[in-house]
C-alpha cells in the first residue's frame, strides 16, 4: 500500500531524525522514558522471540495501562 504523502520526507527516517537531532534533543529533555526492552519472559517464548508485535503494550514508566480503550 502506498504511504500517505508527507512534507519533507526525503531521506530515510533515521537520517531525518539525525538532521533534526538538536531540536529533537531539546524536545526530549525531561520527557518520560518508555523503553521497549525485552524481558526474561522470552525465556518461555523462544518461538516468538524477536517477532512479537505491539509497541502499544510496552513496559512503560509513564502510562500504566497503555492500549485498552
Amino acid at each position, binding site marked *: *500500500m502506498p*504511504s*500517505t*504523502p*508527507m*512534507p*519533507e*520526507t526525503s531521506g*530515510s*527516517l*533515521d537520517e*531525518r*531524525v*539525525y538532521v*533534526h*537531532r538538536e*531540536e*529533537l534533543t*531539546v*524536545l*526530549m529533555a*525531561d*520527557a*518520560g*522514558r*518508555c*523503553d*521497549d*526492552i*525485552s*524481558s*526474561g*519472559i*522470552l*525465556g*518461555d*517464548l*523462544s*518461538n*516468538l*522471540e*524477536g*517477532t*512479537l*508485535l*505491539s*509497541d*502499544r*503494550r*510496552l*513496559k*512503560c514508566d*509513564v*502510562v*500504566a*495501562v*497503555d*492500549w*485498552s*480503550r
Partner: protein
Amino acid sequence: MPVEVADAVAEAVTTWSQDHPVRVLWHGGEPLATGLAHFATLISRFGPGEGHPVRHSVQTNATLIDERWCELFATVPVEVAVSIDGPAPDNSARADRGGRDSTARTLRGIELLRRHRVRFGAIAVVSDPTPARAVALYDWFAELGATSLGVNIEERKGVHRDVSGTGAEVAEFWAALAQRWAADRRMPIREFAHAFGYVRDTLAGRSAARADRPVNPMPMITWDGHVVPVSPDLAGFSSPRLGPFTAGNVADAPLGELLTRAAAVPWVAEALAGVTACRASCDHFAYCRGGQAANKYFESGRLDVTETSYCRNSKIALMEGLIQHAQYAHA
C-alpha cells in the same frame, strides 16, 4: 472471570516474576462491572511476586467508581487509567447501553479519585485530529489532573469502522500536540515517550539494533481463559478463514505452554509473517516494530499485510509531526 482462570494466569505470572517485574492489566469492556468484591478476589489470587513485583492496573470508564472503589485503589497496588475523550462534546461517543452520554458519570468518578488522592492516567480517542483539538486536548487533560495521557487516533477495529483524518492532517495534529507539550510538560504523552525511545536509539547509533530487539510480549487472557498471544484487540473475534483468534485456553494447558506453542497456530503465524513483511518493506520498522495485527485484519481481512491506517495516523504521521515541530523550532 472465574477464579480458576485468574489462578491459571497467576501461576504463570508468579513464575515470570522470578525474572522480571510483571504488570497485570485488567480491562474490558468495563472491568469494574465485575463488582468490587469479585475484583478484589481476582486480584488476591496474584501474589506480590517472587524476586520482582507483580503490579496491577485497571483501564476503566470510571462510571462505577465510588467511595469503596477508591478505598480499594488506595489500599491495594492497582494503578488506574480512565478512558475519556475530553469534555462532553468530545466524549459523546462513549455512551452506555441505553445510548446515554457517560461523560458526567466519568467525571464524577474522576472527581472521587482526586478526592481520595488516587493518581490516574487517561486514554483518549481522537476522531477530529486538528491542531486546535491537540491544544484543547492537552490543556483539558492537564487541568483534569491526569498523570499521563495516551492518544488513540480513531481506528478501524472490531465493530468500529471509522478512520479519522489523512496522514498530513494528522501530522499537523501531532506537531501541535508536541508544541503544546513542549511548552507545558506537566503531563507526559504516551506516544511521544515511545517515539522518543526510537529517537534516542537512532541518535545513539542503535536504530538497527532496536529493529532486531525482541519486544516485550503481552499475552491477553480473556474472561473465559482464551489466550491471545499477539494484538489483544483481536480477542473475541473470529476469521472465516483462520477461525477464532485464540491460541488455546488456560483450562486445557498452562499459560506458558500455550505461549510457547503459539507461533505454530495459523493465525499467529500469519501475524508474525506480517511483521516480517513490515521489516522488509517499511522505513519506520525500527520505530514501529511491525504494527498491529488487529488493525491489519480489520482493515484488510489479513494479518500478513503491512501498512495500515493505524500505521499512517499513529506512527508515521506522529513521527512526521515531531519532525515538523523540530523544523518549526529550528526556524
